[in-house]
């Protein structure tokens, strides 16, 4: 009788422990870490440099080096479309498009960076002006871009980026 009670008690304790492990699902120690202020500042500068380099490449109408700014499994979204990885986007969308432009210029550019190591979340706002090579026509748009960057081996790279734009006009019209 005593042995039966001890075994029952042992099994109860075992199952309670197993249950406690089960409830930890989804409450694991987060991968995101707190960074010291100086580190955060340096990281923010580095993130802004990556985004600035991407913008400079677009303005130069050149893809040189842009792929290095992105992770291989990056995702690009533009104006309602799912473009795939940056390399796919570059090959099928961006490169042909840049060839059709005489110029591409950004203005009124602002960027905000929120650091949550190993991630950085960015929001960029800007105007852009495109001049078409075919007929010199000018297209002016107001755009936003939201990106997620990840720090890997000390380097910041773009994991995901989503851009959208609207014509530069007063927003009295419905966008739908």
């Amino acid at each position, binding site marked *: 009788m005593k042995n039966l009670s001890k075994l029952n008690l042992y099994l109860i304790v075992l199952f309670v422990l*197993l249950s406690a492990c089960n409830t930890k699902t*989804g409450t694991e120690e987060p991968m995101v870490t707190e960074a010291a202020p100086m580190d955060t500042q340096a990281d923010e500068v580095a993130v802004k440099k990556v985004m600035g380099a991407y913008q400079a490449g677009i303005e130069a109408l050149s893809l040189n080096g842009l792929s290095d700014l992105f992770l291989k499994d990056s995702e690009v979204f533009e*104006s309602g479309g799912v473009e795939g990885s940056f390399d796919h986007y570059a090959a099928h969308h961006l490169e042909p498009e840049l060839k059709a432009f005489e110029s591409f210029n950004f203005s009124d550019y602002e960027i905000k960076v929120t650091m*949550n190591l190993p991630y950085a979340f960015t*929001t960029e706002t800007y105007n852009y002006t495109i001049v078409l090579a075919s007929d010199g026509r000018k297209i002016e748009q107001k755009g936003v871009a939201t990106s997620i960057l990840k720090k890997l081996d000390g380097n910041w790279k773009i994991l995901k980026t989503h851009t959208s734009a609207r014509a530069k006009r007063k*927003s009295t019209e419905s966008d739908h």
Partner: protein
Amino acid sequence: MKLSKLTIAALLSIFTIQSVTAQPDTDLVKRVLKTYKETLESLDVTKSYALFTEDSQVLEQGKIEGTYRDYIANHIGPELGHFTSFTFSEYEVTVELDLPYAFTTESYIYNIVLKEDERKVERKASATSILKKIDNEWKIIKTHSSSRAVK
């Protein structure tokens, strides 16, 4: 040695309850996004504040809308009042988890029927969001949606 039937029953109960209640975070994240879509389809977003953090950021089609409260007050709230219906179709979602964050991508078609003249608007859209698990609840901290005409 025989285990008491009561002990066995108790142990099985504990195990079953824990298995049922430990829902994967991916499903919980998808449920938040699904609830938001259903809220839009109901044309009444007034009870959806809890899906977003108070300092959330909403971006839509080239514009920063502000927090979700700002977006409801100044854009989507008034806009839904002009619709007879707002429905989503061909909906797909992917979730990437890295606690406490979830990074999501949604693609869908949306159809709007306008009250004024019953005109139909159909758009192909994508939305990228960041959710954060706070006090065991998933909430949207940032969402960016954009769309284009359906070809």
